[in-house]
Structure formats: C-alpha cells, structure tokens
C-alpha cells in the first residue's frame, strides 16, 4: 500500500529524469540560447524556444484576462447569491464544461470560432492567438470556478454573520469580508488555471495558427502563434530518435515540466495557507 502511495512521487521523479535525459543533447548544444534563442527552425536545425515560450505565455495571458473575471464572478455568484437548491445544478453544469475533451474544443474552435474571428477582424485565417485565447478561456473557467468556489464556501459563517450584524449589506459583506478571506484560494485558482492553460495542447494547436515567431507588435493578438505544447505534439511524429530535433522537443517538455511544477506548488502553498488562516 505504501508502494502504491509512493508511485506518484516515483513517477513524477522518473518523468523529470527521463525527459531531462532525452532533452540533454539540445540543452548542451545550445546552452542558454535554447531558452533565449529567437529562431525555431527545423530546416536550419536551430532550436531557440523564446518564440514558443512567448506564444504560450501570450495565449495564456489572453485566456486569463477573460477567464479570471468570468470565473471569480461566477464563483461568488454561485456560492453567495444563488439559492442552495440551484447551486449543485449550476456547479455540475460548469464541471461538465470542464470534462469536454480538448480535441472537441479544438473541433468547435476550427468549425465555428475561427471563421467568426476571421470575418469580424477581416483576416484571411481565423487561427490566431485571439482564437486560442478564447478557447483556452472557456477551458480554464471551470478550474477557477471550482477552486475559488471551494474557498469562498469555506469562509466561516460567523465572519459573514458578524458583518451582517454590524449592519453591512450583503454586497458589503461579500466585498469586504468574503473576498479578502478567500483571497489566497482565489489566487490559487488563478495559478491552477494558468497551469491548466499553459499545458493545454490539442485545442490550442488546432486554433493558434502555429507560426514560430513573436508577433509584431508583440501584443498583436490577431497574428498566429506557436506554443510549447503545440510544437511538441506536431513535431514528435516526424522527429527521428536521437536527432537534435528530437532532443529539442524534450527540452521544451522540460521547460513546460518546470513551469507546471512551480505553478502547481505555489498554488498548493496558497491553498494550505488559506486553510491554516481559517484555522482548518
């Protein structure tokens, strides 16, 4: 039984080990240029991941700009305003939204969203950063709703009753008591949403356009981008084992692994701190 419990640690460790081992060649060849290099080109056999890191961060930033307000507001509404009888139903529907496979999101994105983005902005192709951000936003909202919802629900009733007894309105109570108390949990939900969004592969790949260049200007959401995850998924199939390209893809995997590890651990700490502060 102990072994079963330890498997999570063992496999996490193995994951780091094996991905790092395969990525070593590219890291040794390019050194820091692997992270800061501007050119990712298979034909030139040059692998600089900066445009891909930028692409990932850009679509995720765009997604969070939509998903955070949407998700946090939804969580507050569901937990604090909605009558108890409707709460489970609405939460379940949002959870169902999270369970839709990413390939289906990509499918819907290609079929419906991309053509609309193209026609609204007069583009020749709708597979651009904006489309990817919108798809990602929908995929991230459920994570934010469920985690911030949990922390909002965990705010002790006494806190709210105390505020109401002092004559605060319900809105004041939410704004000045509930949200500040649940702050670290809400922040954690944003981090987890970030983690989920940056690791999303298939849906993003299908709608982001996949051009390995930093857009000009860099905030141009109407240009195509290539993300870390998309490159791995697209090139793994053709990269011959042992080549520099193969190794470079694992190098990207390593970057992604480390980003996710940091983000998830931070979220973990935030959640625990929130629980501790509430005396849980």
């Amino acid at each position, binding site marked *: 039984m102990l072994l079963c419990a330890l498997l999570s640690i063992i496999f*996490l460790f193995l994951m780091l080990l094996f991905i790092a081992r395969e990525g070593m060649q590219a890291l040794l060849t390019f050194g820091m240029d692997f992270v800061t290099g501007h050119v990712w080109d298979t034909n030139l056999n040059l692998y600089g991941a900066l445009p891909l890191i930028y692409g990932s961060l850009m679509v995720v930033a765009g997604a969070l700009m939509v998903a955070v307000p*949407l998700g946090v*507001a939804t969580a507050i509404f569901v937990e604090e305003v909605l009558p108890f009888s409707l709460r489970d139903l609405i939460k379940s529907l949002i959870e169902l939204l999270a369970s839709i496979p990413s390939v289906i999101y990509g499918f819907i994105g290609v079929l419906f969203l991309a053509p609309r983005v193209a026609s609204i902005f007069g583009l020749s192709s709708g597979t651009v950063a904006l489309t990817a951000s919108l798809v990602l936003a929908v995929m991230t909202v459920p994570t934010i709703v469920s985690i911030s919802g949990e922390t909002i629900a965990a705010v002790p009733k006494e806190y709210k009753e105390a505020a109401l007894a002092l004559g605060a309105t319900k809105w004041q109570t939410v704004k000045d008591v509930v949200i500040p108390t649940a702050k670290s949990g809400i922040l954690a939900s944003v981090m987890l949403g970030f983690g989920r969004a940056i690791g999303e592969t298939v849906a993003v790949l299908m709608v982001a356009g996949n051009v390995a260049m930093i857009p000009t200007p860099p905030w141009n959401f109407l240009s195509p981008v290539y993300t870390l995850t998309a490159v791995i998924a697209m090139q793994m199939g053709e990269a011959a084992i042992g080549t520099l390209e193969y190794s470079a893809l694992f190098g990207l995997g390593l970057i992604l692994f480390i980003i996710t590890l940091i983000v998830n651990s931070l979220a973990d700490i935030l959640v625990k701190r929130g629980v501790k502060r509430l005396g849980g």
Partner: protein
Amino acid sequence: MAGKISEKVFFAILGVPTIICLAVFLWITSILLSGIGTLRLDLLTTSVLKGGFFEMIVGTAYLLLGATGVAGPIGVFAAIYLTEYARHGRLTRIIDQAINNLAGMPSIIIGLFGYTFFCRQLGLGISLAAGWLTLALMMLPIVIRGTEEAIKMVPNTFKEAALALGASKWETTKSITLPSAAPGIITSVLLGIARVAGETAAILFTACVLVTRGLPKSPFEPVMALAFNLFVKIVALGEPPEKVFGIALILFLLVISFAAVGIALRIYYRRKQPWLR
C-alpha cells in the same frame, strides 16, 4: 431602500458571467447535437475500412478498461494508505504534493514521458499496453483524491465498532470502510474515465495509429481511438470538420455521459449518506 435596490442590481450583474458560462456549454452541446442527424446507428458497428467507427469505439473502450484496471486498484490502495495507515508527517505531505503535481501535469508531458519510458525504455513500443500505463498516470490522482474523500466520509463510529469487536485494522478496512466508501470510489473511477476518455495528447505517440486492420490481437499492438482519429483527421489530413462530425459527436456523448453519471452520483451520495439520516 436605495441600498437594497443597488445591491440587487449588483448581484444581478454578478450573475451575467454565470449565464455566459452556461450559455457556452449549451452552445457547444447544441452544435454537437445538431450533427446527430448525420449519425447512423449501423455505422457504430461498421468497420472503419467501410466508413464506420467500430474499431475506434472498441479501441477507446480497450484503452479505458486497461487504464482503469491499472489506476483503479493502485489509486484505491494509495488512498487507503494515506487516509487509514499513514502517520501524518513529512512523507504524507510530500506524497500529497506529488499527487497534486501529477494531477496538474499537462497531458503532453505525460505523453512524452510515456513514449520514452513505457514505449522505449520498457520496450512496449506504440501499443495498447503503453497507452494503458500512460492514461493510468492521468487517472491516478483523480482516483486517489476521490477515494480519499469517500473514505473520510465513513463515520469513525463504524470503524470503532468493528475494532471493538476485535477485528484487525485490515479486516475493518476491508469489510467496513471500503464497502461503505464504495459508491464514492466508483464515482471517482467514473470521473477518472471521463478525464481520459477524450484524451488525445497522452496517446498521440504512445498507443494510437490512424488505421488498424481489425482490432488489436494483443496488448502489444497499436490501437485506434476516437479522440486520436478526430485530431489527426482535422490537423494532419486536413479533412473538413463537417466530415468528422460523427466522431466528435460519439466522443462527446461518451465523455459527457461518464462525467454526468459521475457528478450526479457524487451529489447523490454526498446528500444522502445512509448513515447520516
């Protein structure tokens, strides 16, 4: 009075995002369901070589059965250990963090790892077995978390009663705790299945090929899957989305039904613990 009214307005505005979320869900569902007319039932049992979906559906089922067979028992045992046997301390904290990190690991990373470790290091090749193990890694955290929750909901008095009657700790776990927690455990497995049923990135280079001749005859052969086919047909083969509507719809219905049953059961048992009456 004015305060009351403005407050109502505030809360109404706060409700808009909720409505947007629900509208998006309904919109996606309605788009997919609008394709139901194109889906003929006989295609479900027709071979892929004749334009049907048979091998993809059965292949997906094979993948799910195997992954559940691996992740189910391991996850349940891990959860039993963590809730009933482990002393809370540094080790459990690290295990806890590892589970969270595994749960948050992008599926493409799990796929990359599955390829180097299961396919190459263990020599399984691109095969059903490698797919089982890779998907099991994704299911594991969900099963562990769900089972932990289910076990924690079993009242201590049940266990104490068994222990007082002279049952050993394992006997108590086996004949009291696990049966009481069974609905919750089953729920977590269903949610785990829903999580991996539509997974594409993890099986992209570990288990799947576009077309096989018939079903795989052993776990060491590659397999077809709905999600993989949908993805490759759109991205690599550039087939127009309209032509793959059938696959998308079947996949959607499959995943949503696992998720819906899982979520509904969870709510049902949370509300209606027989011993809480």
